C-alpha cells in the first residue's frame, strides 16, 4: 500500500518536475522518453501488477492528481473554478505538505540505494580476485587429461590381437558344444522319458529340431532325427494318455496341454478336450450349488406331514424379522459365497489357464498363423456362456426364494459379492457378456426387491389401518365421544387425549408417523443398493433408472397412489353395501390424505430425491399430480363421511316421522327424544370433526342467534302464515311468501362437496338431515297436535343446530320449510302459541 502510494506520489512528483520541460520543449518524443524512464523507475521500486492495473483504471481522468494523464492546467482551472479561496488555501497547504513528505521519502530512498550500491561494488571486486585463481587451476587440469588420453591409446593397441583370437576360440567352442548336444540328444530324451521329465524333454527337442531339420541331408544327422522322432512320438503318446485320464490337477493339466501344443498337436482337439474336462469339474460345482437350493422344496414335499408346522416360514409375514429366511439350509450370502468361491473362482482359473495356453501362447508362437487364437477364443466364449447361464439360473432361483424383506443388507451384500466376483471374469474375458448378464440379474433382483417392499408397505398400511379400526372400535373412544357431547367440545377432547391413547388426533399422528417411519426404513434398506461401497451401484442403471423409475416411481409413488386408492375404496365399497367402515375412520383417513397433500408427499419425495440423487432423465410423476390425487381422495372421504353421518341422523329422523301416527297424536308436552338425540349426535360429530379439522369460516351472526332469529322466524312470519291459512286466499299467500323467499335464497345443494373445515362438514351433515326430515314430513298427514309437535321439534332443533353451521339462515330456511310443509299437510292447521313452544323447549 505504502509502495503504491509512494509510486503514485513519485509519478506525480516526476510529472510535476517535468512540467516546465513539457511546456518549453513540448515534443511528444520527449514525453515518451520520460514515460519510459518513469516506467523503469517503477520497475525498480518493485511495483506489482496490481499497482499497474489500478493505475490504468484511474489513468483517464486528467484531473486526477495521481493519474498519468494529469493535466496541471486543467486541474488548476478546475480548482480555481470550483473552490473558494479558503479551500484553495487549504488545498495549497495540503499539497505543499504532500510535496514535502514526498521529498523526504525520496531522499531516504536515494540514501538507502546509495548504501546498497557501495556494497555491490565491493562484492564485484571480490569476485574478480577469486576468478583469477580458478583460471590457473583449470589450466593445470587440462594438461593432466591430455597425458591420460595418450596412455590409454597405447594400451588398447597392444591388446588388439589377443582379443581377436579369444573371440574365435569361443565361437568354435560353442559350435562344438552344440554338436555334442545333438549327438547326445536321443540318449537324453530317453532318460527324460524314464524320469518323466517331460517338460525338459520337449524343451531339448525343440532346441534341436530346427538344426536337425536343416541338416537332415547328412546321414549322421538323419539318424539322430529319426531317433528323436521315435522318442518324441512315445512322449506325445504318454502325454495324451495323461491328458485323457484327467485325474490330475488343473496345473498338471495345463502343463500337459502346453507340452502337447509344443509338440504340434492339433490345437482344436486340445481345446475341446481341455474344456470338456474343465466342464465336468465346474458342473460338479454347480450340482453342489443346486443341491443347496433343492433340499427345501423336496424336503417340504417329503416330510410335509412331519414339518407341517415347522415348514411354514413361507407365509412368515414380512414384518417378523425374527423368523429365518425361507430357506432353512443356508442364507443367501452363504450360498453366493459358496458359488463365488467354488464355481466362479475355478471358472476364472480355467479361463486364465486356457487363455494362457491357447491364446497368448499361440499368439507369440508359430501357431498364430493358423487362426488358432480366434478359434480358441470362440470356443472359450461358448463354454463360458454356457456354464455361466447354468450358474445364473441357479443364482436366480436362489434369489427368488429370498422373499422376506426383513434384512436387505444380506441380499445386497450377496449381490455385491456376486457382482464383484463376476468382474474378475470380465477382466479375463473383456468381450464376454457374462458380467452384463450378472448385472442384469442384480437389476432384476433389485427391482423384485423393490416390488416386495411395495407389497410390504402396502400390507403394513393395511395392517395399521386395521389397528386403527380396532382402536376406534374400542369402547373407550365411543365413551369419550359421548362425554364430549355433554360438556363443551374442548373438555371432551382434552379428557380423551389424556387418558385414552385412542383419541383421533393421536391415532392420526401415530398412523402417519408409522407410515412415514416405515417408508423411511424401506428407503434406507433400498438405499443399500446404491451405497458407494457396492460395486454395482455405479452402473448406469443403479445411478439413473433404479433411482427414478425403481425407487421413486414404482416404490414411493406407487405407495402413495395405493394409499389414496385404498382410501377411496373405503368410500366406494362401503357406500352401497351399508357402510361397514366406521365414520371416524373415514374422517381420519380424510385428514391423513389431506396431510399427505399438504406436507407428507412432498417431504417423502424430497427425501427420496435427496437420498437417491434422482436425476430425472425419464419423466416422473410430479409432486403436484400426487398432491391432487391425495386431495381428491381426502375430499371424497370427507364427502363420504358427511354422507354417512348425515344418513345416520336422517335415518333416525325418518324412522321417527314414519313410525308415528301424526293424525291422532296427543298435545305436545315435550320435545321428542329423537330430536335430543339428533342434537346430541350432531354435538358428538362436531367434537369428532373438531379434533381433526379447523373451525372454518362462519357467516357473521349475532351474539344471541338462537333467540333473535327465533323471534323473527316465529313471530313475524309464522303466525301470518297459519292465521292466514284459514282464509281462502291463504294458500296463495303462503306460496307467494315461500316463493319470494326462495327467489332470494340460493338453491341448496344437499349432497354437495364440503370444504376441509369443521363448519363446512357440519353444515353438510345438517343439510342432509334436515332435508330428509322435510321430505319425510311431506309424505305424512298431520293432525293438529302433530303439527304442533313438529313446531316444537323444529324450534328445539333451531335452538341448537345453528351453532354448527356456516350460515344459520340455512337451518332457518329448512326448518321453515318443514313447518310450512307440515302445515300444508295438516288437516287442522292451528299452530301452537310461540310462548308455549318456547317454554316446552326451554324445559326439555
Amino acid at each position, binding site marked *: 500500500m505504502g509502495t503504491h502510494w509512494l509510486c503514485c506520489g513519485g509519478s506525480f512528483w516526476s510529472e510535476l518536475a517535468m512540467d516546465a520541460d513539457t511546456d518549453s520543449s513540448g515534443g511528444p518524443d520527449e514525453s515518451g522518453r520520460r514515460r519510459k524512464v518513469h516506467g523503469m523507475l517503477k520497475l525498480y521500486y518493485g511495483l506489482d501488477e496490481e499497482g499497474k492495473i489500478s493505475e490504468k483504471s484511474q489513468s483517464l481522468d486528467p484531473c486526477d492528481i495521481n493519474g498519468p494523464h494529469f493535466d496541471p492546467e486543467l486541474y488548476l482551472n478546475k480548482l480555481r473554478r470550483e473552490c473558494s479561496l479558503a479551500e484553495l488555501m487549504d488545498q495549497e497547504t495540503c499539497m505543499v505538505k504532500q510535496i514535502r513528505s514526498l521529498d523526504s521519502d525520496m531522499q531516504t530512498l536515494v540514501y538507502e540505494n546509495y548504501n546498497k550500491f557501495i556494497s555491490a561494488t565491493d562484492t564485484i571486486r571480490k569476485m574478480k580476485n577469486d576468478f583469477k585463481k580458478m583460471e590457473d587451476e583449470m589450466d593445470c587440469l587440462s594438461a593432466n587429461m591430455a597425458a591420460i588420453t595418450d596412455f590409454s591409446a597405447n594400451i588398447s593397441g597392444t591388446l588388439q590381437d589377443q582379443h581377436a583370437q579369444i573371440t574365435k576360440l569361443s565361437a568354435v567352442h560353442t559350435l562344438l558344444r552344440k554338436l555334442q548336444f545333438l549327438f547326445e540328444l536321443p540318449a537324453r530324451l530317453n532318460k527324460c522319458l524314464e524320469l518323466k521329465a517331460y517338460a525338459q524333454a520337449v524343451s531339448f527337442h525343440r532346441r534341436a529340431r530346427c538344426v536337425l531339420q536343416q541338416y537332415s541331408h547328412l546321414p549322421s544327422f538323419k539318424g539322430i532325427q529319426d531317433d528323436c522322432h521315435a522318442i518324441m512320438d512315445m512322449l506325445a503318446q504318454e502325454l495324451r494318455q495323461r491328458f485323457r485320464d484327467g485325474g490330475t490337477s488343473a496345473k498338471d493339466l495345463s502343463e500337459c496341454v502346453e507340452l502337447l501344443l509344443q509338440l504340434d498337436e492339433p490345437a482344436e482337439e486340445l481345446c475341446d478336450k481341455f474344456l470338456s474336462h474343465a466342464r465336468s469339474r465346474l458342473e460338479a460345482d454347480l450340482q453342489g450349488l443346486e443341491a443347496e437350493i433343492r433340499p427345501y422344496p423336496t424336503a417340504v414335499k417329503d416330510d410335509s406331514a412331519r414339518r407341517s408346522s415347522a415348514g411354514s416360514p413361507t407365509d412368515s409375514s414380512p414384518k417378523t424379522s425374527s423368523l429365518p429366511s425361507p430357506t432353512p439350509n443356508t442364507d443367501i450370502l452363504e450360498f453366493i459365497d459358496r458359488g463365488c468361491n467354488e464355481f466362479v473362482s475355478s471358472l476364472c482359473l480355467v479361463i486364465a489357464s486356457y487363455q494362457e495356453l491357447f491364446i497368448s501362447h499361440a499368439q507369440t508362437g508359430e501357431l498364430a498363423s493358423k487362426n488358432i487364437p480366434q478359434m480358441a477364443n470362440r470356443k472359450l466364449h461358448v463354454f463360458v456362456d454356457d456354464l455361466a447361464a447354468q450358474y445364473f439360473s441357479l443364482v436366480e432361483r436362489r434369489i427368488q426364494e429370498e422373499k422376506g424383506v426383513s434384512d436387505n443388507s444380506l441380499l445386497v451384500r450377496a449381490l455385491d459379492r456376486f457382482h464383484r466376483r463376476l468382474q474378475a471374469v470380465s477382466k479375463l474375458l473383456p468381450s464376454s457378456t457374462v458380467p452384463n448378464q450378472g448385472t442384469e440379474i442384480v437389476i432384476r433382483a433389485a427391482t423384485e426387491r423393490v416390488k416386495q417392499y411395495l407389497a410390504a408397505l402396502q400390507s403394513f398400511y393395511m395392517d395399521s389401518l386395521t389397528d386403527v379400526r380396532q382402536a376406534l372400535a374400542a369402547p373407550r373412544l365411543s365413551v369419550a365421544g359421548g362425554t364430549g357431547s355433554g360438556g363443551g367440545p374442548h373438555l371432551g377432547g382434552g379428557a380423551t387425549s389424556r387418558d385414552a391413547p385412542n383419541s383421533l388426533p393421536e391415532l392420526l399422528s401415530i398412523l402417519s408417523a408409522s407410515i412415514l417411519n416405515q417408508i423411511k426404513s424401506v428407503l434406507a434398506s433400498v438405499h443399500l443398493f446404491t451405497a458407494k461401497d457396492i460395486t454395482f451401484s455405479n452402473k448406469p442403471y443403479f445411478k439413473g433408472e433404479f433411482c427414478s423409475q425403481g425407487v421413486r416411481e414404482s416404490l414411493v409413488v406407487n405407495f402413495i397412489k395405493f394409499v389414496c386408492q385404498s382410501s377411496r375404496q373405503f368410500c366406494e365399497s362401503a*357406500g*352401497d*353395501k*351399508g357402510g361397514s367402515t366406521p365414520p371416524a375412520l373415514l374422517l381420519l383417513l380424510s385428514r391423513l390424505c389431506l396431510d399427505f397433500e399438504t406436507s407428507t408427499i412432498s417431504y417423502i419425495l424430497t427425501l427420496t430425491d435427496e437420498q437417491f440423487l434422482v436425476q430425472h432423465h425419464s419423466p416422473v410423476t410430479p409432486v403436484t399430480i400426487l398432491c391432487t390425487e391425495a386431495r381428491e381422495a381426502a375430499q371424497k372421504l370427507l364427502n363420504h363421511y358427511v354422507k354417512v353421518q348425515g*344418513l345416520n341422523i336422517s335415518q333416525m329422523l325418518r324412522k321417527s316421522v314414519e313410525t308415528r301416527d301424526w293424525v291422532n297424536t296427543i298435545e305436545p308436552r315435550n320435545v321428542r327424544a329423537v330430536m335430543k338425540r339428533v342434537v346430541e349426535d350432531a354435538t358428538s360429530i362436531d367434537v369428532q370433526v373438531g379434533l381433526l379439522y379447523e373451525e372454518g369460516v362462519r357467516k357473521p351472526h349475532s351474539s344471541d342467534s338462537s333467540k333473535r332469529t327465533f323471534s323473527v322466524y316465529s313471530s313475524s312470519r309464522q303466525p301470518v302464515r297459519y292465521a292466514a291459512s284459514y282464509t281462502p286466499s291463504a294458500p296463495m299467500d303462503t*306460496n307467494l311468501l*315461500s*316463493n319470494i323467499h*326462495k*327467489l332470494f335464497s340460493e*338453491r341448496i*345443494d*344437499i*349432497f*354437495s362437496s364440503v370444504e376441509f373445515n369443521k363448519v363446512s362438514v357440519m353444515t353438510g351433515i345438517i343439510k342432509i338431515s334436515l*332435508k330428509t326430515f322435510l*321430505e319425510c314430513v*311431506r309424505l305424512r298427514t298431520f293432525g293438529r297436535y302433530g303439527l304442533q309437535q313438529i313446531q316444537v321439534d323444529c324450534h328445539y332443533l333451531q335452538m341448537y343446530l345453528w351453532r354448527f353451521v356456516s350460515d344459520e339462515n340455512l337451518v332457518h330456511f329448512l326448518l321453515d320449510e318443514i313447518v310450512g*310443509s307440515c302445515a300444508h299437510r295438516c288437516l287442522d292447521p292451528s299452530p301452537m302459541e310461540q310462548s308455549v313452544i318456547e317454554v316446552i323447549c326451554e324445559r326439555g
Partner: protein
Amino acid sequence: MYSVLWEPMGDGKRVISLADNQALLWDLQESPTKATVSSTATLEGKGQLKFTSGKWSPHHNCSQLATANDTAIRGWDLRTMSQIYCVENAHGQLVRDLDFNPNRQYYLASCGDDCKVKFWDVRNVQEPVKTLEEHSHWVWSVRYNQSHDQLVLTASSDSRLILSNMVSISSEPFGHMVDDEELSEGEDNPQEEKVKEPLKDSVVSTYEEHEDSVYAAEWSSADPWLFASLSYDGRLVINRVPRALKYRILL
C-alpha cells in the same frame, strides 16, 4: 294401499294393487261393476316389509311385475305369483321408483334415496348395467321415453329434472347397418364416419324451473318429444326434448 297398476297391454281387464306387503291381482272381466281378486302375492321376510313402488312389465305377455321394498327390487311372475328375481341392495337407501324399458324386455331402471339412477339387466342382478349420479338429493321418479328409450327422465327433490341420453343401453343401435354398407361402397367419406361416431351417454339438459322438490315426471303419450314434471309447490312444467337431439335421433 300404495299404488294401482293397470295392465300395460292387452284389453286392460286386469289391475294390480300394492298394499303394505301384499300385491293383489284383480280381474275386472267377470262383471263390469265388481272386481274379483284372482291371485295374491305376499312379501315375506324379517320385520315389516312394505312395497314402496311397483311396475308392471309390458313384456312377456304382461306376466311380470317388478316391485321395490326398502333397498331391494323384486320381480314377480304373475301366473304363479312367485318371486323370479331379487336385487338385494339395489340402492344404498330406499328405492323410490322403477320403470321398464319399453323396447328391451330385460332392462329396468330404478332410482332412490342414494341420489342415483341405476339401470339393470334383470338376468344379471349382481351389478347394475349403468349408474347415473347427477342428482344431489333423492330421486323420486324415473321414466323411459316410450318410443326412444335412450331418453330417460329423472325427477329429484333437489328441485331438478334431468333428461339423459342413455345411448349405450338403448334398443336403438349406434350406427345403422345401411351406413356400414354405404361406407364400404364409398371410401371417400372419412368425415362422415366421424359424424356417425356413437353418441356418448350424456345428460341432455337439466331443468331447474322448479323451486321445490320435483316428485313426478312423465312423458306425453301423444307426442314422444314432450314431457311434464310436477313439483311440491304445485308447479307443472312442460318441456320439449331439445331440437338438436331430436334431429340427431331421427336422422
